[in-house]
Every structure is written in C-alpha cells, then in structure tokens.
C-alpha cells in the first residue's frame, strides 16, 4: 500500500548489554523514548518492518562484501552475540519471503543489491527490535549497508537505496514501516569507546530533520572518520531513511551516554509525497 512509518534509532550493544553499568535514571529515560517509538510504530498498523542496519561482519565478510543486501527469508534468528553479553535472549524472528522478493524486484530497477535467504541478526537489528517489537510478532525485512569494510558505497548511493525502498514500499499491498539503525559519531569497539562528538551529532541531526539532501550528502568519509570516528560511517542508514520518507524529521530523544558508546538517538520522520 505505502510507507506508513519512518524513523531512526541507535543500536549500540551497550544499550541492552551494559545497562547495569549505566545511571538508572538515564537508562529509564532512554528506554521510555524507545517505548514511545514502539507506540508510534504500532499506531501506524504496519504489516512489516524494514530495518536498514549497518554491517558488523555478522553475515558478510571481505571474501564477498555487498554494498547493499536485503533479507529474503521466511524467518531469521538472533542475536549472533552471546545472549548474556547483549542482554537479549536468542530467538526466532519472522520474515516475509514473498514480500521481500517483491520489494527486491522493484529496488533492482535502480539499485543493484545482494539478497540472502539466510541471515543472522546482530545487535544492529536485535537491540532496536527488543524495544520496538519485543514479542517478535511483526515480520521483519532486514537491509544491510556496508559501513564497515572500505571501500564503502558513497553517500549518494545510500540515498538512492532509500529512494528505491520508498518506491518499492509504495508498490506492494502491505503497510510498510521502515527504520534506520546506527550511531552518529562514535568510536565503538576501541579504547575510545564512549567518545562522542555531540556538536557533530547535533549538526547531522539538524540536517536530517530538515531533510537537507545536499547537506547530508556533503560529508566525506575522510572528514567523518576524523570528526565522528569509524562509527560515523553508519550515517548511511539514517540518510537512506530520509530519502525514503521524503518528510521532515522530529527528534524525540538525543543524549550522549558514554557507557553505551554513542549519543543515543530516537527520531521519526513524517511521510512526504
């Protein structure tokens, strides 16, 4: 039928895995914001949720690394991480293979992407789902952008992917929701973990909320690496959502939480014509 919901949120594994090391009041505030997003998502009455996440070497490696990939399975499983380490129990997550196929056919009119009938979810998908669909009863269609192993797809191709996702969502009979997950500035999995460039984050979120395509696509990977760390490459997922939604964003929550290694972010975007 159409795209009925669009949003972005953080997916850092510490959000669920290191909750016992964080300030309780801060965590409750963040978890409340995730619950708010879950309510907004449910109110849109989606038939399926497309999750645009960043590659973390969970499913693909440098022997065969797609710039973009999409799941095409009847069901998925996760988390790939130790469930105790991540704080999320291992579970099966429903997919929708025929819907995936329909979407992929349309996307391929403009964007070449890989597809996979086998896919293990890591924190990039599981952390958001643990809040948004905690009973894992909504069919999920995962989309992966390589933000990990350079050379990475240029930002304008992440935008093109988002445009293609929107076109595809508008062509199927189902009500489609879509989220992008990732960090803005962050230096995860290094001794710098917890370093956050709040000013950079807020400027990126300003560009994202106003859906300023030119400003969002003007970042270079060199400057992003310098100012926002290798984790900043994940802005690709947020940019895809802006391209798909074509609306105006509204920031629901932003707060740097060093023990979670990221400026925790929750925002949604109106669906433009």
């Amino acid at each position, binding site marked *: 039928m159409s795209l009925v919901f669009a949003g972005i949120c953080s997916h850092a594994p510490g959000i669920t895995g290191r909750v016992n090391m964080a300030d309780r009041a801060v965590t409750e505030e963040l978890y409340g914001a995730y619950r708010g997003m879950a309510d907004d998502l449910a109110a849109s009455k989606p038939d399926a949720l497309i999750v645009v996440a960043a590659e973390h*070497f*969970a499913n693909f490696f440098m022997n065969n690394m797609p710039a973009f990939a999409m799941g095409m399975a009847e069901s998925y499983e996760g988390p790939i*991480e130790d469930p105790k380490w991540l704080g999320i129990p291992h579970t099966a997550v429903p997919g929708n293979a025929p819907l995936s196929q329909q979407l992929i056919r349309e996307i391929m009119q403009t964007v070449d992407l890989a597809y996979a009938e086998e896919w293990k979810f890591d924190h990039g998908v599981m952390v958001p789902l643990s809040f948004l669909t905690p009973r894992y009863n909504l069919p999920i269609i995962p989309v992966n952008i390589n933000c990990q192993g350079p050379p990475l797809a240029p930002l304008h191709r992440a935008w093109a992917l988002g445009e293609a996702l929107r076109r595809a969502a508008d062509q199927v009979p189902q009500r489609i929701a879509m989220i992008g997950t990732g960090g803005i500035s962050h230096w*995860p999995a*290094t001794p710098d973990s917890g370093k956050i460039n709040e000013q950079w984050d807020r400027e990126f979120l300003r560009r994202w909320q106003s859906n300023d395509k030119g400003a969002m696509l003007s970042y270079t990977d060199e400057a992003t690496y310098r100012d926002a760390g290798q984790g900043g490459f994940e802005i690709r997922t947020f940019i895809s959502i802006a391209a798909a939604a074509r609306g105006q964003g509204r920031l629901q929550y932003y707060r740097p939480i*060093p023990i979670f290694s990221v400026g925790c972010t929750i925002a949604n975007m109106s669906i433009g014509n």
Partner: protein
Amino acid sequence: MSMSLYHMQKFLFDINRDRDLQRQFKEDMRDVLNRYALSPEERGALESGDIGLIYVLGANGQLLMHFAALLGMSWVDYIAAMRAGVGRHGPVRAGVYAMTTRLDEKVADV
C-alpha cells in the same frame, strides 16, 4: 590489508558466528588455527588470547569485541586489554579502529 591479517579476521568472523567451531576451538585450538594462513605473531596472539596484540595487529573492532566476549572477558577488561596492547606494542597497524585517546585516559570511566 596483508593476506595474513585477512586470514586472522576470517578466523574471527568464522568463530564468532559458528557454534560448532567455537566448540572445536575449545577442544583443540591448534587444529582450528591450522586451517588459517596466519603469521607467527597472529597465531601466537590468538593462541594466548592476547586481545591487546590482536587489536594492535589491526583486527576489526566488531570482530574483536565479540571474540573477547567469547573468551569471557568483561567490558572493562576488554577495553583495558586494548589500551594495554597499544602501550606494549605501539599504535594500531592497520584498519579503521585506531586508538585516538591517550593511554591514561578513561573515556567512559572504564
């Protein structure tokens, strides 16, 4: 990327996602490592679980973070091990996970 760094990371990728390989690694570490074309330094680091050296050799952080968890390391110990590795062996030699903070800096109080 050097060919052996590719293989060290391939090992980390494989073991992080394959529960059978995790079991085999616990039973006979050497047999599993023989399947990968590793430099002596990489092999030694993996055999001894030297997270600091594996980090300095250029292993991707997403791969290393999960491997450290697999070895049972706490978050605090994992961060400390990487920092100590840089102190002992010098800056990270490859990849995009270089350390940019000071050796005595505790970024998130860990």
